[in-house]
């Protein structure tokens, strides 16, 4: 038994010697760095699929017409928030093509006149189990939570999480909770869930 052990031990020592060549920690580092690159660079690209809005809507142009966020994104009488405007609203101006922008033409011809609502992509999509009151958050600037699209001529790319189906910008629960905590607002479940 001891004899055998001795021999095995010898072999082990042998291997150690041979291995001097493949430089101690180097391979480890290679693996480590490779993983970091994969994790931080490749993974996000794999995780999200890119989508573009059905129409190149330019907030910039509309703002230049002197419009406020609230001229289209309005509160209803019951205090609920209309969110993205429907055709009804857009057609107040765009019943027919009024400008030269091809995007407008597309809207008018393919949606407004066909009385078809535009399937806008919502950057801050929240699931059914979340109740969010814009009214309660009225005092904040839109851009504190939303992408600052106001000045954009082309709406930003929409990143959809392949696993959860949420938008990349969807606010996570911990973010809501942190802000509530900082502002001394209750974090009870039903404050946000339904």
């Amino acid at each position: 038994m001891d004899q055998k052990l001795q021999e095995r031990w010898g072999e082990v020592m042998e291997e150690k010697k041979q291995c001097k060549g493949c430089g101690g920690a180097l391979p480890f580092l290679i693996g480590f760095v490779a993983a970091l690159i994969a994790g931080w660079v490749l993974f996000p690209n794999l995780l999200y699929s890119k989508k573009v809005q059905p129409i190149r809507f330019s907030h910039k142009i509309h703002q230049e017409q002197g419009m406020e966020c609230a001229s289209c994104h309005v509160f209803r009488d019951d205090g609920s928030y209309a969110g993205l405007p429907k055709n009804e609203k857009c057609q107040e101006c765009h019943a027919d093509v009024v400008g030269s922008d091809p995007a407008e033409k597309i809207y008018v011809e393919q949606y407004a006149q066909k009385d078809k609502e535009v399937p806008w992509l919502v950057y801050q999509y929240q699931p059914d189990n979340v109740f969010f009151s814009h009214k309660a958050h009225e005092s904040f600037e839109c851009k504190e939570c939303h992408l600052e699209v106001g000045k954009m001529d082309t709406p930003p790319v929409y990143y959809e999480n392949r696993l959860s189906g949420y938008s990349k910008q969807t606010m996570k629960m911990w973010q809501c909770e942190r802000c509530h905590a900082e502002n001394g607002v209750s974090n009870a479940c039903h404050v946000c869930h339904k």
Partner: protein
Amino acid sequence: MKAKEFKVTWGMVIDLDKCTGCGACMTACQVENNIAPMVDASNKMRTLSWMLVYELSNKKSGAEAEVAYLPRPCMQCGNPACVPVCPVIATDKNEEGGIVSQVYPRCIGCRYCMAACPYHARYFNWEDPIFPKGMEKALSPNTSARPRGVVEKCNFCHTRFMQAKDKARQDGGDPEALADGAYMPACAEICPTGAISFGDVKNKEHKVFDLAQGKDAFRLLEKLGLNPQVYYVSKREWVRKLGDNYAATGKPGAAKKHS
């Protein structure tokens, strides 16, 4: 765990002498909260019935026979048996108004809360919500649809509470001090005989304030010390007696609180 105190305490006062047992409250509840229709719904051992109307009888016959109907929502106990037992904080009683919450995406479905609740107010989703083709177009926007395997219960139509607060904000009112009637659960709203009154039992402006203290008012299983926020009213003594346990001696036990 010490029971939490609230400035606003949403409570229900149900007049059992007015309830005809028609079932409109159950229907309204099922509609408001997106409970899928159940094929064998008379088997109450597998149904989801956030609001359930019990039939009480005085066990007499002929011209002496009497029955009463008792609608049973969640009692929203002041000292809930279900909240402290939940291992994953899927339910809490933390918000102004004292409504006991239930969060479906958090619940793991261990059913410990069901074992804890003596009112059978908590229900387990035995199956995924299957609506007949097309009926999902008639889903209410007020309650998210639950997958199978989670526990759910009445929450006084909490989304209506949130909506009432938004309305108040819109009209420049105080969302923390809603007027009587500004917030009504579906069952209270639809009841054709107005047997269900709803409001803040701590607010003198609300009619439930007095009703809850009326001489014929009582609560279910008061002696267990769960301190429910749902009150019942009946002029019939046999009905009131059926609201709580009485020792075989007929003498009520000492009103003893455990918390």
